[in-house]
């Protein structure tokens, strides 16, 4: 039983991982076909992984409603929201537009999902500003550098900031857009490259540990 429960899954990781890795470095018809097939398979398995999350969410809210816990009524709206997207999708075969006309799915997407998701992320703007106010206390030279970089980026992207920059530092004959471009393409790139190189080394090492079965936390408990 241990063979079926533990060794076969580890063998799957090893075989799929090594073949995928090798396919990248051994370009021929078979490796291209293999990568194409695996990509298709991965799409299918990932779609079922979504189902795992969906069932988990529904189960959790079903339990809230069943046990009538605090705020159980709100859980009903999870199902309402779900049906508000899925029913129109089934009616229109997943199409938002038919013959230039917005379908009921397009309507649901625009007036429900898009309105909600855009607002949810827009609300974060207020929290980011509030966090910035608290975290941008300039206590060190490094914090000052962080503040200046963020300030210039924010200032330069609004017309008022450009007007202020031109009236105060116009004599330098350097526009704030040029300063932003320089920050983004020189010092910020240096910082980003260091991080990316570090991430790459970490990702490669972790991937190799997964392929060779050294890292196996994702397998869960026995």
């Amino acid at each position, binding site marked *: 039983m241990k063979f079926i429960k533990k060794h076969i899954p580890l063998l799957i990781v090893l075989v799929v991982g090594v073949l995928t890795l090798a396919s990248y470095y051994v370009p021929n018809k078979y490796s291209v076909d293999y990568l194409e097939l695996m990509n298709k398979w991965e799409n299918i398995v990932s779609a079922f992984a979504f189902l795992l999350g969906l069932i988990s969410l529904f189960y959790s809210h079903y339990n809230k409603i069943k046990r009538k816990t605090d705020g159980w009524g709100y859980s009903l709206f999870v199902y309402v929201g779900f049906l508000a997207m899925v029913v129109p999708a089934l009616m229109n075969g997943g199409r938002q537009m038919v013959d230039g006309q917005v379908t009921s799915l397009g309507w649901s997407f625009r007036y429900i999902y898009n309105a909600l998701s855009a607002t949810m992320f827009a609300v974060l703007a207020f929290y980011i500003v509030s966090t910035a106010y608290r975290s941008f206390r300039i206590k060190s030279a490094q914090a000052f550098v962080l503040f200046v970089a963020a300030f210039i980026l924010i200032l330069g992207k609004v017309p008022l900031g450009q007007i202020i920059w031109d009236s105060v530092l116009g004599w330098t004959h350097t526009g704030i857009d040029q300063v932003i471009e320089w920050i983004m393409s020189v010092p910020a790139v240096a910082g980003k490259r260091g991080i990316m190189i570090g991430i*790459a080394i970490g990702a490669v090492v972790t991937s190799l540990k997964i392929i060779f079965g050294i890292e196996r936390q994702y397998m869960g408990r026995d």
Partner: protein
Amino acid sequence: MTEPWMIAGAWLAAGLTIFLFSFLYRDNPFFKIAEHLYLGAGMGWWFQVYMFNIWKPKVWEPLMAHQWGVIIPAVLGLSLVTQFIPKISWLSRYGFTFLMGYGAGLAVPAGLSTDFMNQIAGTIRPFSALASMTPFAIFNSLLIALGVVCVLFYFFFSVEHKGSVKKVSNVGIYFLMVYFGAAFGNTVMARFSLLYGRFDDLASFSSRGSFYATQIILAVMVLYFLVTGFTKKPQQGEEEAH
């Protein structure tokens, strides 16, 4: 969609937008309704995306055409759902290990070529064309190279950070701070552009054609907060505080 549907949509979108914004004042039932609706609508949206882009064309239709090969990924995918049945939850390992193996196999070349080799190449390449570069471009290339080395020193923990290593890694922190500041600034502006978009939509829903949806819903929300503000009994903690 007919005109009445568009008006109904305007009212719905204006309502949901204002309900979510109302959280900025304080938590309230309208926000919670919109929050839960968002959760469900998000899942519903992705469910139909997967249904019409993956399950139907890549699983159902091939099966109907007797292409039995898709049974393998479908079974691997279905094995994930066994997580909910403790007795056979170990079966889900088959699906997970496939995803992990494929992901890890792809991550190695992607990490090496895109994030590792390309970044180093991008740092070094300008020095092969120094003769054709302006003094300012040479300065920029040197600054990037210096920054990358200093940042790498900051992340290098195999030697103790003291003496000259500490000095170099401290310079690296400045480059990191510039990057974090720039990334933060960009994030703030991205969020604000979304905010402008929402305000723009609210403004368009406030027109006569939408039967003043924004103003009416906003007025109702203000009324709600006024009424609950006056009638709400103070909480136990609040009483003690007073």
